């Protein structure tokens, strides 16, 4: 029972941390809460669904198209909306409202194109049993992909010139511009990468529990809670936050009842906001 509970928590944490990774990457450079992040991730899931189920493409190329679609969606949202707001020196509140508007509009767009009907990739998933544990292929893929994406993003930020520029913008955008960094170009790339990572979470989540146009918000909320409790804007913090959140939710469901799951996750958020608003790793 307990090993399975740990495994279930790790699987949930993987999805939350993928959302938190992209969210934190964008937040660390732009310093605003991008509420459209979850639904952008969902676009990745829907595009993958369309290519596999409607067009009959193989799953791997469909996933690549889905990730690219989510990345491009983020890129164009930045180029068409957020960059213009940055140029106008809009307040954080304006950014927040704009991202809320985009989230609502994209969600409505998904409902129009793909209908509100819930979509399952498959009603059967292959399961592996080992040492009394049960895991599906989708879950194995989720765990592996999360490790790869996390390692890849950390390497990108630590070991490349692009990563240095991202961190410099995160520290001070004006100084970065003065020293010659093309901030708009870098931020567009940050949006592309962050949204593509959200796309990965949307696809994995879709493969596991299906797709619905309203799922973007719940996907985002869990990612944001993970980010806040881990330390908003901190990539490592997002992962820690996701782990803590997933374990608290699953232990709560196991010990008390599943209907209390949201109470635990949002309760944890309130506790952190009250007693450690900077999150676990912010310092």
């Amino acid at each position, binding site marked *: 029972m307990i090993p399975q509970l740990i495994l279930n928590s790790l699987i949930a944490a993987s999805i939350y941390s993928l959302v938190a990774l992209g969210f934190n990457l964008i937040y660390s450079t732009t310093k605003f809460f991008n509420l459209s992040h979850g639904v952008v991730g969902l676009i990745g899931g829907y595009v993958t669904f369309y290519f596999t189920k409607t067009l009959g493409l193989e799953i791997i190329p469909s996933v690549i198209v889905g990730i690219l679609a989510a990345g491009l969606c983020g890129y164009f949202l930045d180029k068409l909306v957020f960059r213009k707001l940055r140029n106008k020196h809009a307040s954080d509140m304006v950014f927040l409202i704009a991202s809320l508007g985009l989230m609502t509009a994209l969600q409505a767009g998904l409902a129009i194109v793909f209908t509100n*009907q819930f979509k399952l990739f498959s009603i059967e998933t292959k399961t592996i049993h080992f040492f009394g544990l049960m895991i*599906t292929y989708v879950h194995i893929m989720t765990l592996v992909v999360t490790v790869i994406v996390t390692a890849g993003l950390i390497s990108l930020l630590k070991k490349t010139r692009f990563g240095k520029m991202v961190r410099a913008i995160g520290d001070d955008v004006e100084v970065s511009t003065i020293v010659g960094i093309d901030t708009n170009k870098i931020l567009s790339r940050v949006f592309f990468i962050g949204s593509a990572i959200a796309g990965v979470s949307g696809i994995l989540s879709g493969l596991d529990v299906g797709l619905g146009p309203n799922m973007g918000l719940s996907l985002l909320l869990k990612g944001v809670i993970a980010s806040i409790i881990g330390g908003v804007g901190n990539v490592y913090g997002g992962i820690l936050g996701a782990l803590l959140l997933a374990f608290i939710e699953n232990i709560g469901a196991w010990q008390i009842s*599943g209907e209390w799951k949201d109470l635990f996750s949002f309760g944890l958020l309130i506790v952190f906001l009250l007693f450690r608003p900077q999150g676990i790793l912010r310092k």
Partner: protein
Amino acid sequence: MVKIVVGLVVLVLVVWGISSRVSVTDPQTKPTIKIGVTLPLTGDVAMLGKSAKNALELSKSQLPPNTKYNYELVFEDDQFKPSLGATTAQKLISIDHVSALVSFGSPVGNVVSPIAQNAQIIHINDFASASSVANGDYNFVHYTPAYEDSKLFITELNKRGIKTLVFFGQQDNPGATALINAFEKDIVNTDIQVLSVQKFNTGTRDFRTQIEKVKSLNPEIYVLEATSPELELLTKQLREAGITTPVTTMEAFEFSDQLSLFEGMWYVNGADPMPWFVDLYTKTYNESPKFGAANAYDVVNLIAQSVEKVGDGKTIPTSAQIKQQLAETKGFNGAVGNNLSIDSDGLVISKPVVRMIKDGKPVTISQ
């Protein structure tokens, strides 16, 4: 220029005044009874809402031509969400000025009931298992009540020798809660045991920990009281957990459009539609009526029958008059059965059936 504009405005006003006076005084024009309908026309159970909409329109088209009143249906989409249902009901009452409200399902029905009662507007729900939807003298339910489902479910469990079960129930769905509560009340003096009731909220996608929690109890059957998509995900995750134990339900399976997930499983469902209704519906729409469509068909007839009885054909009868007439309904021959009556709780009592999913389709196996 100003004179021309003023002249045109005066002309338009004169023409409009004459035309509206003509329509008011025309003795040939029958007053119109507006029936406001709030249904899930989009969202996870849209297929059921659309089928109910078809049935309501079909029913209106089948009304005899010599009625004293015209009947108009005004549709609103509530996506099966109580919050939207409250808004659509308010809109239908205050803006469309409907004479009667029709709602679909327990979650929306439960919020429309107090609104209708407060506004003193007739409200009939055509898909609620929760009898609480009929609370108040303006509210009625035309659907097999939870206690009838529960009785038949216990009979079927006994017939199959099933003594232990685990429930998974959507706790914020009053229909699911009513069914579980009715069952728990009815098994008190039987040897059937509920080993666990696992509750969850609408929107839950991950049931693995709850499944793991009850797996070791080894029930003989799992009872799933949930709507789509929670129902499909729960079933999928039970199978992924290696559980091959049968699953069953009272009322829930036909919320899904992926019935093959429940292939070979028996369950208890609301009353079957009459064959003539199935034929009429299928002939009209080239598809079979879905779960609850026959009840929707009856609702227009129930309202029209009451209005025609109390109305003089010149003025619209009051809600109190319609309500009184509706409450006295006896021996109604409808799409769900013959000789139906409304009881003192405002419920149209119909008997459930046992069904099974065979080749991806629901088949009634016993009445």
